[in-house]
């Protein structure tokens, strides 16, 4: 892999991410420039369960470094063992997405970070004000906020900014496939190489799971109905859609997204456009082998199941994306594509973050050995 810019701290205190040659920089909101102090603060908040209503759930609960920054469950489980309705996406590489959540209802990482805090089935706080208070009373964070924001005051914006900053560094680029792209033709198996060719050809994956040198994350950031949500009755879903007409506020979107039955509406919850019923955001595929089960509801347990689903042409329904159709891949071809997908798993955190350290933090906070990452 060509050496890009290394993680360095310039005179102005900015963080520059290590990206492979030709990869576009992520879009970082102007009001939240990336600094080491914010990354550090964000890391500590990320593992701190005291941000949740009953002190049992942190960001790392569902986005666990030990589990590919997902949680290995079909759907997320929040406080009081409440199950949500959506599968936890990995936090790896999310800094490069155009929008966050399966239905794209958050335009930035900052906006995303705010929602689980107050979602009743996730971290369950009654309001952001309560979250702010919960952090403000913790003396160990004062210095962190000061270093990051120039003042000790805690606000929800700053909490979100810090968490988002930490998440932006979760970009390893240390997979065998990355080495293959860098010129090492032995880095992935021949089967995986055939799989890569199929991915761009007969298997028709690349058109939605966009990959090119500028944007190597395997998602077009668009929303497609491939039929996963369509096991139920489409008419019933449409009826439900009508009954929530008018409920456009962000908090309500967040709740609908986790409400059994309604969550299947997908992108429609945000846009209210008929063609978006049952459409969900194309998932990125880096580290996909680490983040089973698959799809927005975790209904597909293995990559084999996923491939069979696509090979048969998804699930027919009135809104099925016209790009989905039976693929007629042979068993060998499917195995090749799966081998390719497996080559997308990162070995370690690379130079942008220390994955081992985060795994250790996760172990310790889960075991109750520490309550949160210690201050530097």
């Amino acid at each position: 892999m060509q050496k890009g810019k290394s993680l360095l701290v310039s005179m102005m205190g900015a963080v520059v991410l290590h990206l492979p040659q030709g990869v576009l920089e992520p879009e970082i909101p102007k009001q939240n420039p990336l600094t080491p102090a914010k990354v550090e603060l964000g890391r500590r908040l990320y593992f701190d369960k005291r941000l949740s209503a009953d002190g049992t759930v942190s960001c790392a609960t569902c986005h666990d470094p030990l589990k590919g920054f997902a949680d290995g469950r079909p759907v997320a489980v929040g406080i009081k063992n409440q199950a949500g309705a959506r599968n936890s996406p990995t936090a790896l590489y999310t800094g490069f997405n155009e929008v966050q959540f399966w239905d794209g209802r958050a335009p930035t990482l900052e906006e995303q970070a705010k929602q689980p805090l107050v979602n009743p089935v996730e971290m369950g706080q009654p309001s952001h004000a309560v979250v702010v208070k919960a952090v403000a009373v913790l003396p160990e964070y004062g210095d962190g906020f000061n270093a990051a924001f120039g003042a000790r005051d805690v606000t929800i914006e700053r909490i979100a900014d810090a968490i988002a900053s930490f998440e932006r560094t979760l970009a390893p680029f240390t997979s065998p496939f990355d080495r293959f792209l860098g010129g090492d033709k032995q880095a992935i198996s021949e089967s995986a190489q055939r799989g890569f060719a199929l991915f761009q050809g007969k298997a028709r994956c690349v058109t939605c799971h966009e990959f090119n040198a500028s944007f190597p994350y395997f998602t077009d950031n668009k929303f497609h109905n491939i039929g996963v949500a369509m096991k139920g009755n489409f008419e019933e879903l449409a009826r439900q859609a009508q009954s929530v007409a008018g409920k456009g506020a962000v908090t309500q979107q967040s709740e609908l997204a986790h409400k059994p039955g309604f969550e299947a509406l997908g992108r429609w919850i945000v846009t209210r456009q008929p063609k978006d019923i049952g459409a969900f955001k194309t998932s990125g595929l880096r580290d996909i082998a680490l983040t089973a089960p698959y799809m927005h509801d975790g209904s597909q347990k293995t990559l084999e199941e996923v491939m069979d689903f696509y090979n048969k042409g998804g699930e027919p329904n009135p809104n099925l994306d016209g790009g989905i159709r039976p693929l007629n891949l042979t068993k060998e071809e499917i195995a090749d594509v799966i081998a390719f997908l497996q080559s997308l798993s990162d070995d370690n955190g690379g130079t942008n973050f220390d994955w081992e350290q985060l795994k250790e933090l996760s172990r310790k906070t889960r075991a109750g050995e520490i309550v949160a990452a210690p201050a530097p």
Partner: protein
Amino acid sequence: MARYVLPKERERQEYEAERERWLQKLPQMSRRDFFRTAAQAAAAATVAWKGFPPHSFQLINVAEAKQAAPKFTIAYISDSHILDKGMNHRFIRACQKAAQDVNALDPQPDFVLFGGDLAQLGKPEELTIGQGILKTVKAPVRMMVGEHDWYLDMGEKWREMFGEPTYSFDHKGVHFVVLNSVIVSDYWTEPKMTPIQRMLAMAQLDNPNGRPFTVGEAQREWLKKDLAKVDKKTPIIVFSHSPLYKYYRPWNFWTDDAEQVQQILAPFSTVTVIHAHTHQPLTNRIKNITFHGVLSTAWPWPYAPKGLPPLTVQMVRADPFNQFDGCGWGTVTALENGQVNKRYNLWDRNPLDVTWDDVSGGKKWVEQADAQLKGNVSWPSY
């Protein structure tokens, strides 16, 4: 209502604020503005859910002027171009998809028009498959013939299966006329072309040796007689495969005796032509006649390099990755005032509405619709 385009997510908050403002203004908005805006999640249950998938029920009856109140609705399925290549062939699946969508309409349309080109090569197998699919449509189906149905055997099988191609009927105060407007002068007898050669020649849209479609003198005479019995104030709706005006001759988006046909229709105060063949949204108005194109279920044609009627709001270019993009079916709603509202139900896109208000508003409406489309879209070429 023209196409709706979602602003980029980064502008979502602006969009939400604007939507809120729009919702506030709702009671004072003119009918045209209301229908031009996107299908919003309007709170009021009395608001028609325009743009909702037709396979759900629609709340109808918007409070509106009696003039433009809807009287009845018909649906259309058209240009299915069925090939006999196994039931999984996408043309067959698309035709079935349209039939399913029409069947899911609630309330059901009064009847369904089939717009012609049921078969691709006029073969009996193709026509039979098509007929089988149309038999699954719950509402009554009225058939119209296209050139792909006709020129293998000069309409013999069509007549046997579906009856005479030219006929008229009355429905709820509207006089409907169905024409066979794909008559071309004989160029196959002399060179002794075989039936399939003739069919293939007619099937090629860009055939440089093609002859123009006509209605022909016999049918024009028939039309004169048929209309002689109709009161001049009765709304007329003409179903025709070719457009009954002149758009682009090289692709036979053309009826050579269009002026003469229009002349016969001239004395009537409200006339609408619903035509097929062009596989794209098209809107035109010539004197007293409004012309609306219909969608194909099989594939979209690009817009022609010249001759596009100025009232047309073009659909954005289809994506070939999506086998149904640019295709679909639609509805025609006859209004109290005799005019029609046209809806194009494009698959994988939001429906495109062309109302009588839009048409009577003239070019200004097109400019407004085009201005709504900000940002990067793939326009049809030329």
